[in-house]
Each structure stands twice: as C-alpha cells, then as structure tokens.
C-alpha cells in the first residue's frame, strides 16, 4: 500500500515536472513559444488566412470575367490580382500548409516528444508570416507583382511595366523559401532520427514516408528557384543581363530554373495531401492499408520522376523535339506511381468495411476531381496537344482540377479528421456535408466549362474579351460556380470559428484510428507523457493498454529530471535508442532573427542599402547568440537514465548527432543552388557560338590559385579536427587560426581574376555569370571564416574540447562541401574557356 502510494506520488511529481518544463510562457511572451503544437497551429492558421485572401482575389478575377467587355477591375489591377492569387496559393498556402500539418502532427505520430530543432520551426514560421504579409500587403499599395506567378522575363524584367512588384515577389518569396528549406531540414532529421523506439523503417506511418520524400524533394527543387531569383534580382538591381537577349542573356534560362522548381513543387503539394488520405482511409476502412510497400514505391517513384517533367511547361518555346519527347515520356511515366496510390486506396476500402464519414467524403470527392485533372494532365503531356492548349483556359482548368482535387479537398478532409486533436471536439457533420456538396458542385460548375473555353481559344491572363467570340456563357457559368464553391469554403470557416464550448468534448480517439498521433492530448504541451515502445504499424489497434501505459508514464523519459526539454534520438533503420537529446526551449531569438532577416529582404526591395547592412548585422549577431547560447552545450553529466533500465548519452557529435545531419542536408540544398548557377554558365555556352563574346575572362592563374588556397584551407581544417580530437588543443587552435587567413587569401584570389581582368558584368552575360559564380563561392568562404572564428572562440572558452567537438565537426563538414564548390567554380571559370 505504501509502495503504491509512493509510486503514485512519484508519477505525479514527474508529471508536474514535465508540465512545468514544457509549459508555454504567459502573456505576450506566449508568442515566443517554440512548441511544435503552437507553431504548427499558427503556421496552419496563417496559411489558411492567406488562402482565404487569395480566394477573394480569385473571386474578383471571376467577377471581372463574368461578362464580356467588363470594367469591374482595371487591366493593371486584374494583372495584380491573378498574379497574387497564383503566387499566394502556391507559396503561402499549398506548400506551407503541409509544413504546418507536419510540424503539428509528426512528433506525436512518431511517438516523439518533440522534433529535434523546435527553434528552427519557430524561425521558419516567423519568416513565413512576415514574408507572406509583405507579399500580400503589396496589392493595397497598388504595388503587387503583375506578371504572372511564374514571372517570365522579359516582361518581368521590364521595370516600367512591372514596377516594384517583381522585386517584392522575388525577395519576399526568396525569404519564404528559406523557411521551407528550414522545415525540410527539421522534417528529414525528425523522421529519420526521432521515431519512438521499436518503430522500424517498415513500421513508420505512411504520412512520415511521404513527408520524408517531400522534404527531400524540397531540398532539390527550391534551390534552383533561389539561384534563379539571385540572377533575376541582379538583373533588376544592377542591370546584369542574365535574361537580356541583346547582351547575350536568355529569358529561357529563367524558365528552366523556374520549372525545375515549379514542376516538382506540384508533387511537393500533392504528396502530403495524399499522405493525409493514407492516414484517413485505413481508419475508416477499419483495417491496415493494403499494399504498404506499394505506397512507398509510389511516394519514392513520384518524388524522383517529378524532376524529369519540367520542360513540359516549355513545349512551345522551340526546344529540339527530341528534348520535348524525353520530357513527354517522363510525364506519361509519372502517371504509373500516381495511379498506384489511388488503387491502393480503393483496395483498402474494398478489403475493409468502409464507414462513409465526412473526411472520407471530402477525400473521395477530391480523388474523383483529381483523376479528371490527372487525365487532362496526360493529354497536355503530349507535345502536339499542348501546342494547341498551351496558355489557354484548358490549362487553367487542368491545374485547378489537379490542385483542388489533389490538395484542397484532402486538406479539408484532414481538417475535419484531425480537428479533435486541436480542440478536443469534432466539427459539425451537418455543416460539413453541406459545405462538401457546395464545394464539389461549385467546383465542377466553375472549372469544367474552362476546358471548353480553353478549347474555344480563350487565352489565360486576359482581363476581358469581346462579346462575339462565344466565350461569354461559359465564363458566366464559371463565375457562378466559383461563388458556389466559395460559399462552401465560407461554411467551413464558420464551422471552425464558431464557439464550440457547449459541444461535449470528444473522447481521446474519436474515430478509433490505429496510429499514434491520437495519443496526443490537446490540453498538454509535452507531446507524449512517456515515449512508448512500438511493435505495430497501428499501435492503438494492436498494442492493448498502450494509451494507459503511456499516460501513466511507464515508458521512456517520463520525467524531466534535469529541468530541460528532451527528446529521444533513435537509429535510422531499427529505431534503437541512441541519445537523449536536449532541445531548445522558449526564446525570443527566433523572432528577432526572422524579423531582422526579413528586414534585409524588405530593405533590399526598396534599395535602402544602409538599412540592409544594419539588418544583416543584427541577423548575424542574433544567429550567433542563438548558436552560442542554445546549441552544443556541454552537459553537466554525460549520461541520463531514461527509464526501463536504459541509460543514454546526452551529448553527441559527428554523424551521430542531429546537428551534423542538419548541416549535411542544408549543404545538399546549398549545393543544388550552386549546381543551378553552374547550369546557367553552361547554358550560355550552349546558346552562343562563342559564349565569351570575345571579352576577357578571369584568366587561368588567379582562379587556379583560389582552387589551391581553398584546398589548403580545407586540409588545415582537417588537421584542426584531428588535433582537437587528440586533445592537442594548441595545435588545433593554431590550425584554425591559419585556416582563417588561408581562406581569406583564397577569397581574395577568387575575386582577383575578374577584377584584374576588368570584367564588366553589365556589358554582357559572360562577365555577369562569371561574377555571380565568383561571388557565390567567396560568400561561402566568408561564412566559413565566421565559422572558424566561432570554433576558435569555443576552443578558448572551453566549449570546444576533445570530447565535445560537435561544432568543429559540423564546420569541417561544411568545408567538405565548400571545397567541392570552390574546386568546381574556380576550376570551371579558369579552365573551361581555355578548353572550349
């Protein structure tokens, strides 16, 4: 009896401890929270608000097109409205909403207490929110981007036409892309390294599989756009002629870089929505998914194939027909894995006893719409058909069928399905059903006629049309449909916002789902009360007593004995516990760094150079404080008893640490951006008989000197790491110190080539692309110097020692990537003009 009371007391003490450590701050400090539940919710709400805003813009566009020769909107405002509509829907809703859902759901779905970098998620959210408000706000100052969501030059490089809008688009979205890449890093490391013990790779929830693939795709899809943005902004700001055909540039390069991003992006949007369906369908079929491995095939296969489709947006640009045919073939091939997923869902429904609930209704309706969009997609993937349909309303119809069926409907299904996790209550079934039918009927009424308007030749992006060409009735029907659709969306908003305090709270797992996210308790912040041992794909179905044991704290990490926020790190394949990771807690640093980085981008837009520099310094300072105070801390004891007789290390470095993986993933993305710039260099080589246009190059000597110096600096860094590991701290410091100077010399040598040969970047595209590649590499060299100095400071203050060397090992990893970048860039810049 006494024992029982003691253990009960202990459990309560542990619970209080845990609750205190994970508590949200009060008052205005609430907004400094970094907890995944809050960040996910804010992220999702912000994305949803942006969606409603973009939806209103669409309604304005539809009103203008309702009747011929309409003057409801001016041509210019119309251009701003449709550009912002597309931009906001793609960049501020479709991609971020999945990041939001993932940050909200993943930890509990994986049985983790928290993802490994909560502050990074918060930083991503604040970047996104600020960037989004900046881009959306522009239309109220009549300064929104107005050249279409893909910003084609030469229209968008024409300053007289596009005004400041194009800069707002380029800089605002580059800023948001930073947030997406941050989310990708967080998700990949989280899914790979933070699953509950026992959740082997064959038992991961399918949602996690999809998100893993999508996060990987972001790493290779977004950087080409960032590279494109850099070229574009250099042209607009400093007149470097990357897309100006008169000076050797080519607008087609932008199209390549944009669509290398843009097509995978469609799948980056689509896969997470399908991932939601992969969670919902088994629940309502009340059985495990049929063909788990087939879903993995589909997710991985689609992820890869989606990178081979980008030219199908460029079928009418006059590329060689054989190039078009390669992309056409790949576009047809991607239908295979896409179809597999749909058949898997059908098979699961056939094998189980389907409960046709509201989430299933939205899901099934969405899939029906998506299949139509997929079929028209197969049509436009055929080059000859596309030559007819390109840039007409047929394409508008196709893309809305794909995106609204493949993304919006499943997301709404997800909202109805997961709402009890937010509020503890279900949304209204009755309102939901009415909303579904309004949306479904409204959508088809609005968008199906657009196939016909398109086939009748109506081009996209015209602000009005004459009465006698036979487009008026179809357009009127589309407008009516759009408003019916919007009324359905409005009903959902009302359902979410209306006060629900009179409704009884639902039980913990109201749909009787089998996956782990349903253990999450809306009123608690700790993620999971204790981290369970998992032995099934559907633990809530197959592991009796699991919820009880988790809630009673009978599994791992039931306490917070050090008063710190902690989560478990496990192995990639078999999820064996490896480390008890301390994660960052509440902090204002995330907001300050996000807002100051936002300040850099906003100041750049308006060419306020001094302010740009100031904001840059604040950003750098804040990030350094963040790293210094919040990462690689030496723990007061090395090991931690996590319960059930297991003791784990608290500190890890090198490939065993999550930081190392984050660096690796970030640099993979960084390397992709660099590869895109190099693609630009060779692209210009292909389109000109002499791509140097007879202008002087950087010479051979200086670039090769830069290569040699970067290689020496890298070797010295390797030596520094080695010496530090052997506890020869003075040698390690000496190496770091020398490496700083060698790196500086390498950067100067890199700049010397183009400077001494007086390469003028405004004269022709050749000097411009050489300068951009030089500057990219040198900038990375300067970042490396900051890292080296940071390690030196760490070594002198005792933060970096032989046993605690995570910082140094991460910096050396950065150097591996840097040395490849430097070898490639200066090697090519110096030698390629000689051999070509």
């Amino acid at each position, binding site marked *: 009896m006494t024992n029982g009371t003691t253990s009960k007391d202990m459990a309560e003490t542990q619970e209080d401890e845990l609750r205190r450590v994970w508590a949200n701050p009060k008052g205005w400090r609430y907004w400094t929270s970094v907890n995944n539940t809050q960040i996910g919710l804010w992220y999702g709400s912000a994305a949803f608000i942006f969606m409603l805003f973009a939806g209103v813009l669409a309604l304005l566009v539809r009103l203008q097109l309702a009747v011929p020769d309409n003057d409801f909107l001016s041509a210019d405002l119309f251009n701003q409205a449709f550009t912002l509509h597309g931009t906001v829907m793609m960049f501020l809703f479709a991609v971020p909403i999945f990041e939001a859902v993932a940050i909200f759901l993943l930890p509990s779905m994986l049985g983790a207490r928290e993802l490994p970098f909560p502050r990074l998620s918060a930083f991503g959210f604040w970047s996104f929110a600020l960037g989004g408000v900046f881009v959306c706000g522009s239309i109220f100052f009549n300064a929104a981007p107005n050249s279409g969501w893909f910003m084609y030059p030469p229209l968008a490089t024409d300053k007289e036409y596009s005004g400041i809008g194009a800069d707002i688009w380029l800089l605002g979205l580059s800023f948001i892309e930073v947030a997406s890449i941050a989310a990708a890093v967080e998700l990949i490391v989280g899914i790979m390294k933070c699953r509950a013990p026992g959740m082997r790779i064959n038992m991961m929830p399918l949602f996690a599989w999809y998100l893993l693939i999508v996060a990987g795709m972001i790493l290779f899809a977004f950087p080409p756009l960032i590279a494109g943005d850099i070229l574009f902004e250099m042209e607009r700001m400093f007149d470097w002629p990357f897309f100006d055909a008169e000076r050797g540039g080519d607008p087609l390069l932008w199209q390549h870089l944009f669509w290398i991003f843009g097509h995978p992006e469609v799948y980056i949007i689509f896969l997470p929505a399908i991932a939601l369906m992969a969670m919902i369908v088994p629940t309502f079929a009340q059985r495990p998914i049929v063909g*788990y*491995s087939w879903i993995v095939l589909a997710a991985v296969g689609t992820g890869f194939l989606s990178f081979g489709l980008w030219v199908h947006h460029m079928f009418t640009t006059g590329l060689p027909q054989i190039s078009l045919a*390669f992309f056409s073939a790949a576009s047809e091939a991607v239908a295979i894995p896409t179809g597999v997923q749909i058949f898997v869902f059908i098979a699961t429904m056939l094998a189980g006893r389907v409960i046709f609930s509201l989430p299933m209704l939205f899901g099934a309706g969405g899939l029906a719409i998506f299949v139509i969009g997929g079929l028209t997609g197969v049509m436009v993937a055929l080059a000859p058909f596309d030559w007819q349909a390109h840039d007409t309303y047929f394409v508008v119809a196709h893309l809305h069928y794909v995106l609204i069926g493949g993304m919006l409907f499943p997301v709404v299904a997800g909202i109805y399905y997961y709402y009890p996790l937010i509020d503890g209550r279900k949304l209204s079934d009755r309102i939901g059903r009415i909303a579904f039918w309004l949306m479904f009927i409204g959508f088809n009424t609005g968008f199906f006629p657009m196939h016909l308007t398109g086939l009748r030749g109506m081009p996209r992006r015209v602000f009005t049309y004459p009465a006698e060409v036979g487009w008026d009735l179809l357009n009127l029907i589309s407008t009516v449909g759009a408003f019916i659709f919007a009324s359905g969306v409005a009903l959902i908003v009302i359902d979410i916002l209306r006060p629900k305090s009179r409704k009884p709270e639902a039980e913990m797992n109201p749909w009787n789902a089998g996956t782990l996210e349903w253990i999450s308790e809306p009123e608690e912040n700790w993620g999971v009360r204790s981290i369970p041992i998992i032995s099934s794909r559907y633990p809530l179905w197959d592991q009796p007593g699991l919820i009880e044991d988790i809630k009673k704290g009978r599994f791992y990490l039931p306490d917070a004995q050090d008063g710190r926020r902690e989560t478990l790190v496990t192995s990639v394949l078999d999820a064996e516990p490896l480390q008890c990771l301390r994660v960052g807690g509440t902090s204002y640093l995330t907001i300050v760094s996000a807002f100051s980085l936002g300040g850099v981008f906003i100041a750049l837009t308006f060419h306020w150079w001094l302010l740009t520099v100031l904001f840059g310094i604040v950003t750098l300072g804040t990030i350094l404080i963040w790293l210094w105070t919040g990462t690689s801390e030496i723990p007061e004891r090395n090991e931690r008893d996590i319960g059930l007789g297991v003791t784990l290390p608290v500190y890890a470095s090198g490939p065993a640490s999550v930081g190392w993986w984050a660096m690796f993933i970030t640099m993979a993305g960084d390397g992709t951006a660099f590869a895109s710039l190099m693609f630009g260099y060779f692209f210009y080589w292909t389109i000109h008989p002499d791509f140097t246009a007879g202008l002087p190059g950087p010479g051979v000597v200086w670039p090769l000197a830069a290569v040699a110096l970067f290689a020496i600096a890298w070797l010295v860094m390797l030596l520094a790491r080695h010496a530090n590991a052997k506890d020869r701290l003075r040698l390690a410091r000496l190496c770091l110190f020398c490496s700083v100077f060698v790196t500086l010399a390498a950067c100067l040598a890199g700049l010397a080539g183009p400077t001494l040969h007086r390469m003028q970047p405004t004269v022709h595209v050749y000097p411009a692309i050489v300068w951009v590649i030089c500057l990219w590499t040198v900038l990375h060299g300067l970042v490396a110097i900051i890292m080296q100095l940071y390690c030196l400071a760490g070594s002198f203050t005792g933060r970096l020692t032989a046993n605690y060397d995570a910082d140094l090992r991460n910096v050396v990893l950065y150097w591996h990537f840097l040395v490849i970048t430097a070898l490639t860039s200066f090697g090519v810049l110096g030698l390629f003009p000689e051999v070509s």
Partner: protein
Amino acid sequence: MRLIPKEVETLWTLFTGPVVWALHFLACYIAAAVYCAKASQVSFSFGTLRLSLFAMTAVALAAILVAAWLSWRQWGFGSGDPPHDAPTRQDRLLFQGFATLLLSGLSFVAVIFVSVPLLFIEVCAR
C-alpha cells in the same frame, strides 16, 4: 574481391533504381540538348548520338536489373509474403527488399519510356 556485393545495412539502396533512372534521363537530355545546340561544330551525326544513347539505355537497364536482383535476394527470393509488418529486423529487411524490388520495376519501365523517343526522332527539329 567479391563479385556479388554483400547485403548492406542502409536505407540508401532503396533509391538505386530511381537514381539510375535520373542519371539516364539527365544523360539523354543533356547529350541531345548540347548536340542540337552545337550540331554545326561536332563531327559525328545525330544517328551516332542516338546509337550511343541506346547503348547508355542498355547499361542503365542492366544496372537496374542488378539492383533488382540484389533486392530480390534481400527479399529472400520471395520466400515470404508482404505486408512485412512484424517488429523484427528480419521483417524490416524483407520490407526493404520488396520495396526496392518494386522501385526497380518502376525505374526499368521509366527508363524504357524515356528511351522510346530515340527510336522515332531522327533529327534535331525544333
């Protein structure tokens, strides 16, 4: 030296087939694009280019077949049926083998898809 590689404990093998597809796709696209841009400066014909890309296709298909065979072995030569959802190392390996095998199949078909244009298109028409 072993002719047939040992089974390895890694997630990366899952992506072998798709990576081969990606390399083959890039090789076809880049070779054709550069050839058509520089056709006046090169000494060989479009037919030669097509032949060499066919050879490349054969190599890619062979590589995928090897990956498929290795994954078939990892899958125990089909000794067990899916779903491979037991909480054991054995089932995890079988799952990896089966998923890799499926992906090899998809990659094989996708490589053939991409090489079909080489059969039909004989000039650099724009």
